[in-house]
Structure formats: structure tokens, C-alpha cells
């Protein structure tokens, strides 16, 4: 029977793997999710096109990440510009029947991608925790009803799309935090200290999750009664959260 590998060597191998993967795991692969969302959005409204723009890390610009009319993918729009910029700034869905009369409309951006709509409906992609971006529907079909009804429908559709994007990001960010901690462990740090370091990393948008992972790692060093008590406390808090309205 071969000798079992040294755990530290295993961690070093994992750290090397993480380093080599590098930028490939630097951003969540949500292309399939976003593509499906805009395809369904366009069909739902019998619209000319549908697009999703997400906020960049600094929350200063919207970046168009997916669209049924792909010319706009990659375009960046400051949050202080455009109807989409207004929607994420105010957190309010907006329907404009005649964009030519609305000074907020970023006509230059529309012209640069080759299509200027007549009407537009835009809803924020937001959850109870954060604003993620905006979903836009250009020139919805006549059968989709008046502006007020389109607002309701797009707002209702935007909610699960936002939750799906948020879930995808959280799963990815926890994975990144854990992999970053593995690197530190391979250099001799204790695991929970490494996770706390990941949690304290400046600018990390999901530092709170890394902090929670650090707490769980620390709890792992205590005995079963302590871990049971911690689990009971967390479950009690979750029961309270579930019971809150909204």
C-alpha cells in the first residue's frame, strides 16, 4: 500500500491548481443564465430586443452582459446616464412610450449599436440585499398592453432573474474565498486565520461570506456540544428571518 500523501503537499497541489486556473475562476460564468433570461424576456413581450446590464465592481457603470441583439454586449454606461442608469440609481422600474421625448435616453449609445427604439421598459435587477443591474425591453409588442401593465410584468420577471444572478455569484465567491484560503494554508497558516484574511481582503464584495466561512472553520475546532449549540442558534435565527413579512 503506497504511503498516504502528506496533507500539506496536497494543499500545495491544490494551491498550484488554483493559481493556474487564475482568471478563469475570477468571474462567475453566468453567460448561459443571462442569455436565457434575455431570450425569454424578448419573447414574453414580443419585443424587438431584450438586454441585461450589470453593475461593475465600483458601481459606477453598467456593463451590458447579454442581449438578444448582441451589438450592445460590452457597452458601458455610467449610472448617471441613460434610462437604465436612472433605473438602477433610483431602484424604480420605468416605462417610456416615446424615448425621443425623454432627455434621459442615451440616444448616442443606441445609435452606436445600430438601433434606436421608440419605446422602452426597464426594471432594476435587485434583491433585498443589493442592486445588481437592469433589464431592458425595447419596443415591446402591442399585445403586451399599456405601460403600467408592462412595468408590472417586467418587474415581476426581473425579481427571479436577479435572485438567480445573486445566487450564482454567492456560490462562486464562496468558492473563490475557500480556494484563496487553501493557498494560505499551504504556506503554513491556520485555516480559520486564512479565511479571516480572505474576509478582510479590501474591496472583496462578498467578504461577509468569507467571514462566515471563517467562523465555521473556527467552530470546527471545538467539540460536538459547542458545534451543536452554534447550529441551534443559527437555526433559531433563520426561523426568525423566515417569519418576517416580505
Amino acid at each position, binding site marked *: 500500500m503506497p504511503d498516504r500523501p502528506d496533507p500539506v503537499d496536497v494543499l500545495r497541489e491544490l494551491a498550484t491548481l488554483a493559481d493556474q486556473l487564475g482568471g478563469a475562476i475570477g468571474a462567475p460564468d453566468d453567460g448561459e443564465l443571462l442569455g436565457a433570461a434575455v431570450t425569454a424576456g424578448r419573447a414574453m413581450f414580443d419585443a424587438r430586443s431584450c438586454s441585461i446590464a450589470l*453593475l461593475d465592481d*465600483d*458601481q*459606477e457603470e453598467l456593463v451590458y452582459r447579454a442581449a438578444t441583439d448582441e451589438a450592445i454586449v460590452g457597452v458601458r454606461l*455610467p*449610472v*448617471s446616464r441613460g434610462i437604465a442608469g*436612472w433605473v*438602477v*440609481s*433610483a*431602484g*424604480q*422600474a*420605468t*416605462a*417610456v*412610450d*416615446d424615448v425621443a*421625448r*425623454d*432627455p*434621459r435616453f442615451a440616444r448616442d449609445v443606441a445609435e452606436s449599436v445600430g438601433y434606436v427604439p421608440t419605446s422602452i421598459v426597464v*426594471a432594476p435587477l*435587485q*434583491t*433585498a*440585499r*443589493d*442592486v445588481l443591474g437592469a433589464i431592458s425591453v425595447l419596443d415591446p409588442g402591442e399585445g403586451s398592453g399599456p*405601460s*403600467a401593465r408592462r*412595468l*408590472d410584468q*417586467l*418587474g*415581476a420577471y*426581473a*425579481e427571479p432573474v436577479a435572485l438567480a444572478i445573486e445566487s450564482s455569484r454567492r456560490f462562486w465567491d464562496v468558492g473563490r474565498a475557500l480556494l484563496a484560503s487553501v493557498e494560505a494554508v499551504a504556506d503554513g497558516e491556520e485555516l480559520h486565520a486564512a479565511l479571516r484574511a480572505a474576509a478582510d481582503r479590501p474591496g472583496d464584495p462578498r467578504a461577509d461570506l468569507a467571514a462566515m466561512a471563517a467562523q465555521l472553520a473556527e467552530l470546527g475546532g471545538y467539540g460536538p456540544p459547542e458545534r451543536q449549540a452554534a447550529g441551534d442558534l443559527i437555526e433559531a435565527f433563520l426561523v426568525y428571518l423566515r417569519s418576517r*413579512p*416580505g
Partner: protein
Amino acid sequence: MKPAWSSHFEPGTLPDVTALPLDAPISRSWAWGGATGAGVRVAVIDSGVDPAHPAVGRLAGAVAIELDADAPQGVRVVPAEGDMFGHGTACAGVIRSIAPDAELYSVRVLGRNLKGRGSAFAGGLRWAIEQGMHVVNMSLSTRKRDYFALFHELADEAYFRNIMLVCAVDNVQGPTYPSQYSSVFSVAAHSRDDPFGFDYNPSPPAEFGAPGIDVEVAWLDGSTLRATGNSFAAPHIAGLLARIRSKHRELTPFQAKTVLHALAGNVTAPSPGASVEE
């Protein structure tokens, strides 16, 4: 030992207050007849306000709330001019049209970066409360659950200082703050266009309905825009409250809600002889 606050109700300590004229139907004439909003301070917490727009006219003051990690509560208040989007100007124009002599204050809480937007919004409301505004129009709200407690605390403070908070509910259903709180005058849009026409909803959280569908509002660069949104309904109620308050200065928020309830388009007076059964 007496319980806390009981000393406030001691004879000689408790001030006299004026009751609403409930022995006669509350009328529009009583509520706001002859009133113009004069002497009432109204804050518009929004994207800024353009005082050069003819529908707005003069502003009594204009500030912006900016993030500052070294400042108390993480925000600072700075002088500011202009409107980033036109939305604040639209709201101010509606208020001006209903309460022409109200003192309008612009409180810009939107910036070129969304980080800390909730903190700026809360900072703007806090500033309006500390400055002693009488009516505050918020056609913005936040869905972030993290801000529930902070905005609730501010709404309570405003309520107990007789400051009337008017907030548009979100254009899409779902809890938003501070429109969700019971002390706030929460407003949604209805399709009628009478600027003095409003409804009372007995099934909140949107308690009042006012014009906000296909309404002509002031916008950027002196223009106007035909727009739809609960945002444009809220300032109709804010303007009415400014007008009412200029005639009845000591009205409390709950009295003002009673007045609006009595004058709402869908509320009918009880039939003669009707009484509450014991």
C-alpha cells in the same frame, strides 16, 4: 414611583390642543381653502431640482448628501445645484403647482456611484428632519432589507416631530422602505388627472392614490415630459399636505391622514343616524 412619561399627562403640564371639527363633515374648504402653502417647508429628496425651470421657480435651499467615511454616519452635507436626471424637478414642479408658496428644498441623494446609496438616502432624510421640514417628498425608496431598521427609526422620529413623510411605493410590487411604514403617507398612481383628486386605499401599504399615469411633468432643461410612475403621484399628496399645513399649522401626521381620508374621492360620509355599535 410613576411610570415613565406619565408626568407628561399631569394637570398643568399637558398642553391644550385643538380637535378636528368632527361634529361636521371635513370639507375641502376647511382643509385647504384659501391656502397656498406659505410658510411650509417642503423637502424633495431626489436627484436634485432645477430652480431655473419655470414650473419650479425659486428654491429655499439645495444640498447634496455625499459619502464621507470620516463624517458622522458616513455622509456629509454639501451645497449643491441642479438635477442629475430631471426626476426631482418633476416632483418639485408638481408640488409647486398645488402649493405655489411652499418653501421648496432640494436634497440630492443620487450621485455618480451607487455605493452607499442607501446611506445617502438615509442621510438626506436625517437632514430634512434635523432642519425641521414640515413635509418631505420621497419618490425614491430602497428594497435593501439592511436599511429596514434605520429608515424605521427615522420615520418614527419624523412622526413624533410632526413631520409628514410622503413616499411613493415602488412601481413594481414588493416591500420598499420607507414607503412600507404605517406612519408614512404612502402613495401610488391612479389614472385620473385632477391634481386635487385622490383616493384612500383601505388595504395598504399604498394608502393613497393620486395622479401618476400619463401626467405632464417638468423635466430637464426647461422641458416637460409625459410620464407614468408612482413617483409622480407622491408629490401630489405632498403638495396637498403643504397646502393643508399652511392653513392648519399644528396638524399632526395622524390628523392629516384623517383629513385626507375624509376628503378622498372614494370615501362617503356615513348615513344620518349611523353609529358605532358597542
